[in-house]
């Protein structure tokens, strides 16, 4: 990691990611107006996760970070998932 060589993300890539985020926002709004029952919330969360991945990998440069940092993020998200999962294990089966 000494004297690290850093990748510069081009303006073009950043603008394309931004456009993709705007399109996904439009899709979220569109999907939310269709009655799909419980699927609505999962669609909303799914699209929000894709948008987050775009922000994290490109805007936050995670794509060009070492594997160590990627694993670090994965562990943090797994912790959150366990936290949410255990809560529902309690809430749903009371």
């Amino acid at each position, binding site marked *: 990691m000494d004297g690290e060589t*850093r990748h510069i993300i081009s303006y073009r890539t950043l603008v394309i990611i931004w456009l993709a985020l705007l399109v996904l926002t439009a899709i979220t709004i569109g999907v939310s107006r269709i009655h799909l029952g419980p699927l609505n919330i999962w669609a909303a969360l799914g699209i929000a996760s894709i948008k987050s991945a775009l922000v*994290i990998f490109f805007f936050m440069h995670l794509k060009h970070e070492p594997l160590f940092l990627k694993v670090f993020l994965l562990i943090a998200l797994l912790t959150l998932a366990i936290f949410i999962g255990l809560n529902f294990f309690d809430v749903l089966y009371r």
Partner: protein
Amino acid sequence: MITNSSHEHSGKDPFGARLGMWLFLFTEVILFGGLFVLYAAYLSRYPGEFAQAAHRLDMIMGGSNTIVLLTSSLFVALAVSALQRSEKTAATLFLLGTVISAMVFLGIKYLEWSAKIGHGIYPDSAILNEMARGEIIFFGLYFVTTGLHGLHVLIGMFIILVMLVRVRIGTVDADNFTQLEVSGLYWHLVDLIWIFIFPLYYLLL
């Protein structure tokens, strides 16, 4: 591609700085995660009342703020790329774009909360207390979550403003941009949280 001076010579550790910021961001994720867990648990208990309360939120304002925040994130990312290429003027202008976006976001948030409070909907108000239990919980979570998020926008805006000044006077430049980078990471987190708030609160059917 550019090469930073080795931290052995400069005494700096850019990767360590970024790692530290990511670690802090994880604690933020857990903080907001707690609020999202409460949201999810009560949504499963009061789905109808949550939907009814969500219909009272202004989707146009929420949607506009989504676009404003996504754009502000783009500006920060562009500013980092610009500074890495020593394009100081461009970096300054991009950061100015972020600060203006943050102000627009807070302005819209002000109008939105004013309208809610104008209609008598605020924590422990007489009108809210008359509503169903699920709606009271929804609005309680709405004010806490968007309030905490708004506070983050305010703090982030000042951090970006400081970065703007430092880029302008040259203390942050192409050879020393870690500060700007980690400030940007914080700003992107604010955007990430909103990416989840918007569909969960404003678009719920």
